[in-house]
């Protein structure tokens, strides 16, 4: 087990390294370069000075060499300076990461609660009206464009009903915990609905399969009550594959967080990456993307480990 974790962690590190090079090259292909951005504020500069600046910043060197220098600094924890925020990238990224974690965890919890209850309810009577209705809800969740869902929720709850704020994380001057919560409601609900659809389908499928198993028939035969059969014998077994799928969905959750944060003006990593790419903030975009990749890789690792831990039939080697 220990060896397995070590090998998987090494694999993840290699993927991260390869990705860092790919992302570094892609960022280099974005319009303009750091000097162009600087020039826009210095109209009187001569071409010789531009060339000298390029040389000082090492932009005239080949890609591999520049990447090597960047990697050396990154390993020491120096990810450079953010142009848009005029501060070191890590200092900018910290609070944003916390914000995104809050959003993702709240949405994930809500979504798990919704999908497990609805999925089990659907699985208990396959083909019934209840099942059809829940199935339709699940399909709707998979098929709805997340940014449009956010728009509709803003339209209904902020513009028409005035129940909830449409954007930001707090009202200036109002303050207080209740205010913070009110600002979280729409983003969390949007992101949760975006992932609940596929979760419901997984829970339902897994539950139906488990209810067909021999040990369920045995439990019924020895006279266990329906509630006990469903909640104890079936539910716990049905959950095993579901846990894996849910942990694996963290990458998708991050994509959803980018949209949600952009729509509701939440200062998280997703919106930060988006703004950085729009605003030619190369260092911030690069580091943000790397963190996103890291989060996804870690969640995949957790998914594998959780699977082995929950299901003793799986032996990791």
């Amino acid at each position: 087990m220990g060896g397995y974790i070590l090998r998987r962690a090494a694999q993840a590190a290699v993927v991260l390294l390869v990705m860092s090079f790919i992302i570094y090259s892609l960022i280099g292909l974005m319009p303009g370069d750091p000097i162009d951005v600087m020039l826009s504020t210095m109209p009187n500069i001569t071409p010789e000075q531009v060339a000298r600046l390029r040389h000082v910043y090492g932009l005239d060197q080949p890609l591999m060499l520049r990447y090597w220098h960047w990697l050396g600094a990154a390993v020491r924890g120096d990810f450079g300076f953010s142009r848009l925020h005029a501060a070191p990238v890590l200092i900018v990224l910290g609070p944003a990461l916390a914000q995104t974690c809050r959003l993702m965890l709240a949405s994930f919890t809500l979504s798990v609660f919704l999908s497990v209850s609805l999925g089990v309810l659907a699985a208990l009577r396959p083909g019934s009206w209840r099942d059809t209705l829940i199935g339709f809800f699940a399909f709707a969740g998979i098929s709805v464009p997340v940014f449009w869902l956010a728009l509709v929720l803003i339209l209904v709850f902020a513009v028409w009903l005035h129940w909830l704020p449409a954007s930001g994380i707090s009202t200036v001057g109002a303050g207080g915990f209740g205010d913070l919560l009110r600002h979280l409601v729409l983003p969390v609900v949007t992101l949760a609905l975006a992932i609940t659809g596929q979760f419901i389908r997984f829970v339902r499928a897994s539950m139906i399969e488990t209810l067909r198993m021999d040990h369920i028939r045995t439990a019924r035969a020895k006279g266990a009550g329906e509630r006990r059969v469903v909640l104890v014998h079936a539910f716990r077994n049905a959950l095993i594959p579901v846990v894996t799928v849910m942990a694996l969905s963290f990458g998708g959750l991050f994509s959803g967080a980018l949209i949600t944060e952009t729509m509701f003006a939440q200062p998280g990593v997703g919106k930060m990456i988006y703004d950085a790419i729009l605003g030619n903030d190369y260092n911030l975009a690069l580091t943000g993307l790397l963190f996103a990749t890291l989060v996804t890789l870690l969640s995949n690792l957790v998914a594998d480990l959780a699977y082995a831990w929950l299901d003793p039939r799986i032996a990791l080697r």
Partner: protein
Amino acid sequence: MSATTAIATMPDAAIASWRLRWRRFRRHHAGMASLIVLVLLLVFVLAAWPLQAVLGLDPNATDLLSRYEPPSALHWLGTDDAGRDELLRLMLGGQISLLVGALATVAGGILGVMIGLVAGYFGGRADAFLMRFTDGVIALPLLPLLIVLGAVDLTKLGFSSEFAHSGAAAFWRVVIIIALFDWTSIARLVRAATLSVRERDYVRAARASGGGAGYVMRAHILPNIATPIIVAGTLTIGRVILFESVLSFLGFGIVPPTPSWGNMLNNAQELVTTAPALAIYPGLLIFLTVIAVNFLGDGLQHAFDPRSNV
């Protein structure tokens, strides 16, 4: 081989099994309803041309004096933020969105089928490498990467500035970057299906009588794993349309003046307060299309899977 000759050369047994599948599909209500909805959507987006001719409208001509006009005899759904006909742009935008969905699915599908076939057929090192690679791609944070790829300056890749800023470049770029990432589910599925037919007698017989790898894969394996590919491909179309819409919405996909259902919502924050209906229409059409495609895939799965009871 064209579609008609493919049907003409099909053995009778194959035609009979497709007939059976069609009968099973027709009994799947949601699948049938979706098929009808999709046909109607196709008619809707193609109606752009006759509508344009009859009413004499130009989809791209801006008229700042007639912004946000209510529906009228000339503009059936009113006008948008630049005074253009909303209905006409919805139809034309639909053509773009559906075309991107179809093209990117086909391109990604071909990529996925090739990778899955090679991994499943040859096994061993090739399989291990390709599947690790697939897992790696699945693990990526998709949307942020698509945005970076959408932001890449094509002139730095050696394209002319004229091409790089044209609508065609934006269109093909969206198709290509989505196809580059959305092949993984098909690759895994094709690999699994290939593994299951690889050791069947007819495949071994074909190999024993000297059939090359390319021939065996094309003639004996691909036709026998076609049905799961069709189902997975259908579900992929829905996902691709969603990706295109969000990329265009964020400004990294189809660029105005060419309309797409995604970029028609570009200034959605303004629309929400000034013209809520305009914020609803394009998204509703995306929603309708994707949900219909997904139910269609569900119906096909039931029809193709002999174990399911419809």
